[in-house]
Structures are given as C-alpha cells and as structure tokens.
C-alpha cells in the first residue's frame, strides 16, 4: 500500500461546518495528529457546506452540486487528487455526489448547469478520491508506523467502536468497500477498531457499530433519537465499554445530547464516555488532553482518563 502512503501524505482537508461548530474537538484532534505524524493537511479555501442530511430533502441535485463544488475546488484550484473528510456527513455526501455524477444523467446536467452559472469548472467524476480520516491514518501513515508512534497508549481502555450509518450505507456509493483484502467491511466495519487496538485499547464486542443514532431527527423528533441513542449507550455499557469511540460529528453530538436528554426526560442514566477516535489516538501518542480537545467534549472523560493514567 505504499502508493496510498505517497498519495495520502498531502491531502485536501475538508473539515466542513460541524467541525467548526459542535465538533470542534474532532477538528482540533485531527490537526494535532496530522502534525504529530507529519501528514500535510491543506485546507480547501472558500469551501461550502456539503448539504449535510437536510438539503437532499429539499432537492437532491442541489446537494450533489454543493458536494461537487468542494471536489471541484480541490481538483481545479488546488491541484489535489485526494480529499480527506473526517465528518461522516461530508464524506458520505462527497462519495454520493461522485457516484451520482458518474451514473445519473440528471445529476451531471444539474452540476454542469449550476457550475457554469456560478463561474467555476464543473466537477467531473474521477477527478478526486474522497477518503475518511480512518483511511487517511490507516493507509496514509500505516499501521506498522503507527505502532512505533504510540507513547503511553490507551492502557487497556475498553472501547466500543461506533461507526453510525453514513460511513457504510448505502453500499453502492462505496465501491471500494467489501472488496476483500484490507478493504473496509460495510456490515462489520473495523478500521477504527484496528487503529485503536494498535493504540492500546481493548475493543469490546459491540453489536451496534452501524446502528442509527437518529441524527437526522436529533432535534425534529427528539424522543425517537433519545430512544435510539439510549439503546446504543446501554448496549455499549452492557458490552463492558468505558468509552464509545466516534468518527462522526452527528453521532458524537447526538450521543452527548441524548445521553443528557435520556437522564432528564426518561430518568435513564448512563456513564459511558463519548470520545472521538482521533482524540484517543492523540492521547495514545502522548499528546496532552488539551492538545486533542478533551476539555471541549460535553461528556466529561477527564477524571476517568486521569485515573487510568492515560491523560
């Protein structure tokens, strides 16, 4: 995989809206890791929102256009052929736009029409490769190399790896997955498990890796979301996890918000901590909790991490 190591060494970084707002610690820790591992992140200048989970419900082709503009900036303005998006929503939408532009005439037509009116080159399928932060570390840095960077490690911290919906579904927008070998599995994803195991965590057997947190309706149908999140939190605790590791800002903030809401509205208390996988990796490499933004999380893991001498 040395070609990917070369390819992912310098990537266009699309952090998106969430990582500037509720998911700041995901941004902080991703940048801290990049620095530590000497991987170059080039911010996409003058980016726009990918459309998240909402714009498609008003007009799916507009969502495709929004995502395509980001990829067009990376390819045409920056000369980058890899876009790295840590946010599952952004990652999903760029992948979906890639698929739709390659396979659906209407999507292609709308992208071309609006790009022309907005005075920028229309994105063409295949111009960039969109990857997740998990691909970026696993292949851009390499697992063997990562082992050498672990300092202190996670000291047997029990982790439930939670991937959510948008990282694996629907399958057709991820043609590189389920291809055997070291490709990711859409039914049982494992890239986060792999990295955190290297970092010294004990991954618990967690049956709800790709369950839904109700993120699309986290505010508009909060009771449904609270039930779904509570199920995930309780399953993680039942599996013996101290921490749920996340790689999606919608899942992460949904788990944080509904952990509190479940306590307030349903008197259901859970104590499992919710931490971005990039924060855990950073801690394992010896970065301070502040450097990876642990204090920015709502779910307060600092006492537990101190007790385990991880922080």
């Amino acid at each position: 995989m040395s070609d990917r190591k070369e390819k992912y060494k310098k990537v266009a970084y699309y952090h998106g809206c969430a990582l500037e707002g509720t998911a700041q610690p995901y941004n902080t820790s991703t940048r801290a890791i990049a620095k530590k591992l000497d991987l170059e992140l080039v911010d996409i200048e003058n980016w726009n929102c990918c459309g998240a989970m909402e714009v498609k419900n008003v007009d799916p082709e507009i969502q495709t256009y929004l995502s395509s503009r980001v990829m067009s900036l990376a390819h045409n303005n920056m000369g980058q052929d890899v876009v790295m998006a840590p946010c599952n929503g952004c990652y999903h939408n760029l992948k979906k736009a890639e698929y739709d532009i390659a396979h659906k005439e209407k999507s292609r037509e709308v992208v071309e029409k609006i790009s022309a009116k907005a005075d920028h080159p229309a994105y063409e399928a295949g111009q960039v490769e969109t990857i997740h932060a998990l691909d970026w570390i696993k292949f851009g840095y390499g697992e063997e190399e990562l082992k050498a960077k672990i300092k202190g490690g996670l000291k047997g911290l029990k982790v439930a790896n939670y991937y959510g919906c948008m990282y694996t579904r629907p399958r057709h927008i991820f043609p590189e997955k389920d291809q055997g070998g070291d490709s990711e599995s859409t039914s049982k994803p494992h890239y986060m498990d792999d990295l955190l195991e290297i970092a010294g965590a004990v991954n618990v057997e967690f049956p709800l890796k790709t369950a839904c947190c109700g993120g699309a309706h986290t505010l508009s149908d909060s009771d449904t979301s609270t039930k779904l999140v509570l199920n995930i939190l309780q399953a993680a605790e039942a599996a013996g996890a101290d921490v749920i590791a996340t790689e999606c800002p919608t899942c992460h903030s949904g788990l944080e918000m509904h952990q509190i809401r479940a306590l307030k509205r349903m008197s259901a208390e859970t104590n499992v901590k919710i931490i971005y996988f990039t924060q855990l990796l950073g801690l394992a490499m010896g970065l301070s909790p502040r450097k990876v933004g642990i204090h920015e999380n709502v779910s307060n893991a600092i006492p537990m991490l101190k007790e385990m001498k991880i922080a």
Partner: protein
Amino acid sequence: MAIHEKHLIRPENIKTHDKLVIDGVDVSGHWSTFIETRVVTDYNEQLQEEIAALPGGEYIHRCWQCGSCTNSCTVNAINPDFNPRYWIYLIRMGMESELLRDKEIIWQCVSCNKCTYACPRDVVPEGVMKATAHWLEMKGHTETTPSTIFDEEFTRQVVETGKIEDGRILKNFLLNSKQPLIQDWLIEMVKKMITNLPIKYLFGMGWATLFQPKTKGWGKARAAIEEHIAEEKAAERAALGLDPIK
C-alpha cells in the same frame, strides 16, 4: 427473521357475538367470528405515479414486497406501526385512504438507509418515505412536519451563504417549530460544556453566531440554486395536479 406482517383487516371490523344461535345451532363466542365486509372504491390510480414524481420515489415500481425494508428498519424496531413495506404496497395499489391512517408517522423515517442497504430491488425505500412524507404535506393531508421545518431552515442558510452555523440553526428551528428556546437538556449541555471549556472557545462560538460564516463570492451560485429549486418545485406541484404557488 420473519417478515413483519401487516394485514388489511381492521380490529373494529372483527365481529363476534357472545350469544348467537343460527338454525338451532349455538355459535356463541368465537364460533361466530366474522369479518365485516369492506368495499374499497376510492382507489387513487395516480398514487404511484405521484409518489414517483417526487425526489426519492422514482424506483417504487420495482418493489416485490419481500419485506427486507421493514425487517431492517430502525424506526419499526421502536414503533411496529412504522412499516415501509406496507406503505409501498398501499401506494402501488392506490389505497390512499389506508395510507392516510398512518399519515402522522411516515415523516419519522431517520434516513439510516438500512432499508436501502437491504433492498434486493434497489427501490431506495428511504427515498420513498421522504417522497411520501412530502406528498402528504403537498396534498395538505398533514401540517408541515418538524423534519421539513428543520430541512428548510438548514437549506435556506446553505443556499443564502454557502455555510451553516449550528447555534443559528438550533435557534431558528425551535422558533419555527414553536418550541421554547429554553430546554432542560440544552441548559444541562451548556453547563457541562462550560465546566471544562476555556473562555476563548465560548467567545469563538458566540462570534460565529453573531457573524455568520459565509462562502465568498457565493452570489451567483445562490441565484442558480434558487432558480433550480423553484423550477423543480413547480414541476413537482404540476405532477401532483396542484396549482402553482403564486
């Protein structure tokens, strides 16, 4: 796993008589159970075409009723009345009045795409749920749902500026859906956040709320997007036989 069943016999149409004798034979209790005849005459023969004319509904005709969607459904697991396979069946049959009995819950699809993942026929049931929820709103069968209020506020911000800002979305959604801005869980979240957060982050977040982030030179994209959405919405209304919005 079994296919989740749903049948068309309504509980109120199942009749039994505690005491009943027919031709000298005592058929009291369960012996006399019968289902009251119900004649469906109000088929909407356009229903499938109307759903298919809305974004997400395009592939509904492919369904062969295997039930994989309902079987894998996140919402069905917490509410058995949420039954995508059944609704797809009703739409394809044109049984509008039956569909309307569930009109208040169809919008609750969380778009987890488990159905789309499981569907052997590429129906994209998630899209069909969205199309059906929009159809219900457009036809005036339901009020604008909280989901649509959220989607529209979010989309409005993206179209206007190219970006969104969390705090503004939250505030406007609560206002637009007529909910109080002060929520118990929200207060608790803010309390937890400020416990560990250095003051500069709070300033940063306040700053973003006051001075909304924007994509530079977005004006032309905005105009083109607004024009496209207006065209699409007009086409959708025409497909449903509705008058154009003045």
